[in-house]
């Protein structure tokens, strides 16, 4: 019988392989890591802002996640579990740290302005940092992690209506912060649309 590649396995099958602790456990965990690490890191990075703190939280998330699998805890959604772990770690880190931008982050920000579109991205990153924690979290879970309202509600233990409201507020606040730039961008976009042939 042909062996199924880990890339083709679902989360449950991969979890079983990791739990079994056999030779394939490593490749199964690697596959889970490849599947979810970008979104987990995006959450940590944008929620915490600081690069070092976000790396710490990110590493700790996957180590705890691995322990959870090993303890064979019942899980309905693997990604939901990872995001809950990440969220708890990030909230803890947020309580500990002061809002000081590291030199490395500052340099990264300064050097990361290659095009006009990147300029908007940089403004958005700055604007995200200006949002209150609860609104920022909603925005990141929705826009960076692509979670549905229901998934966000599950991860944050919030009613779905609260998620809707907070998301609406977060985007509204972002638009207010970005208003001067977005107006230009919108004009530019309109002109481009009108000039299409």
């Amino acid at each position, binding site marked *: 019988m042909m062996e199924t590649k880990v890339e083709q396995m679902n989360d449950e099958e991969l979890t079983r392989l990791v739990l079994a602790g056999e030779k394939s456990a490593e490749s199964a*965990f690697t596959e889970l*890591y490849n599947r979810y690490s*970008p979104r987990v890191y995006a959450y940590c990075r944008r929620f915490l802002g600081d690069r070092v703190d976000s790396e710490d939280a990110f590493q700790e998330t996957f180590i705890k996640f691995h322990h959870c699998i090993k303890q064979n805890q019942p899980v309905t959604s693997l990604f939901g579990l990872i995001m809950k772990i990440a969220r708890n770690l990030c909230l803890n880190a947020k309580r500990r740290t002061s809002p000081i931008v590291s030199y490395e982050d500052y340099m990264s920000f300064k050097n990361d302005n290659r095009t006009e579109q990147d300029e908007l991205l940089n403004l958005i990153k700055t604007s995200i940092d200006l949002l209150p924690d609860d609104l920022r979290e909603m925005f990141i879970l929705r*826009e960076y992690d692509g979670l549905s309202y229901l998934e966000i509600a599950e991860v944050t233990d919030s009613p779905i209506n609260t998620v809707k409201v907070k998301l609406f507020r977060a*985007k509204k606040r972002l638009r207010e912060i970005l208003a001067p730039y977005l107006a230009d961008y919108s004009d530019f976009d*309109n002109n481009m649309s009108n000039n299409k042939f």
Partner: protein
Amino acid sequence: MNEYNANNPSEMLHLLLDGELDSSMEASLFTSLLGNEELRNEMRELISIRESVRRDVEAFTPPISATSGIFSKLGYTIPLMPVSIPAATSLGFWANVGHKIWNPAFTAVLASLVTFILMWNFNSQGINENDSNQIADNNKTVANTSQANESLASSTQITNDNKSGQEVKVVYITKYIKDKPNNTVEVVNNDVENTDDNVNDTGNLNDIYNNLSFSPFDNVKLQPYQSNLNNSMTKEISLVNNYYSAVNNDPALTLQFKVMSGSSYPNINFSGTDESFITNFSIAAFAPVSEIFQIGLEAGKEPFGMEFYDIDDKDNRLYTIRQKPTLLWAGVGVKIISDKHIDFLAYSQPYLHLTMASTSVGPLVKTNAGLQFVSESGLGILLGLEGSLLAYQNENIWYSSKNLGIMYGMFMRF
């Protein structure tokens, strides 16, 4: 929470863009969109924000150090494959890849273009060694130079003196003379040999051609043809080629200064880093070993982007160190200069330059290739592509750093 109203067009718009709007409300929203310019602007802005977020590649790329830390702590092998980026960020990913590869891609295209031009140039001059007519045609270039007027006159004399009326084809064989400037070339015409007993046949043209690597551009100055056909068809042509002496590799000490402008891989950029030529230059002294080989000593300065792991002894954590030091280096270089010249590029010569050097952190290999032009005074210029590969070690792990860019410089032959 009172501000939220699901029947508000703006909120419906948010729900629509998030894929959460009930289908029964879509018609109402679309009607609002048609008649509400402000709402359409809001939609554009929200889409712009979302598209920008999807270009946030940095947020979606876990650092290698973090990945290494996780897998090390779990006792797993660190995965070699890069972490995939979600499809949602595909636009940003490709934009990022494009940004990273433009420099090497541009260099590759430029190198291909130079290679093509060189190949085309040489092939177009390709000599069929068995075709004396083609060789003669190539020598029209020589014949047309003012410096060869006397030789032309001699060739005319040869034709006039040919009592048998046979056509005599004078062939100026440049490379043969170039190698041995004081040597002689015997000009032989097989047709004449068949009809004139006085002709001293000393060889076959093909034999001579077979020993040649022909380049019509080397032959610039010719001495007059020294004899006539009444005595012998064996004639001496001695060539003194001043220009050749300057542009080729007659024994001479060469001092060289060159600068590189390019990128470092890994590309580490810090604001305020001095990227001027002062941080990336070299000086060298070369002595000729043979006609096309030169060997010399070199030294210079060059910045290298470095990214490596380092374990902090205090907290036993793995860190990624990024830095871009400017290193001093010194070593031995070999330069191979083609004896071909490119006519449409000011008679410049292709060359290849290899250097084995040492730095304070590890060995360095440098190579550059391009074109060089030298004037009669011995002053020359260089233009080409240069690559450097530095190997260095930290925590018993070897790392490498590459530089790639455009090189330019000047040299002086003494």
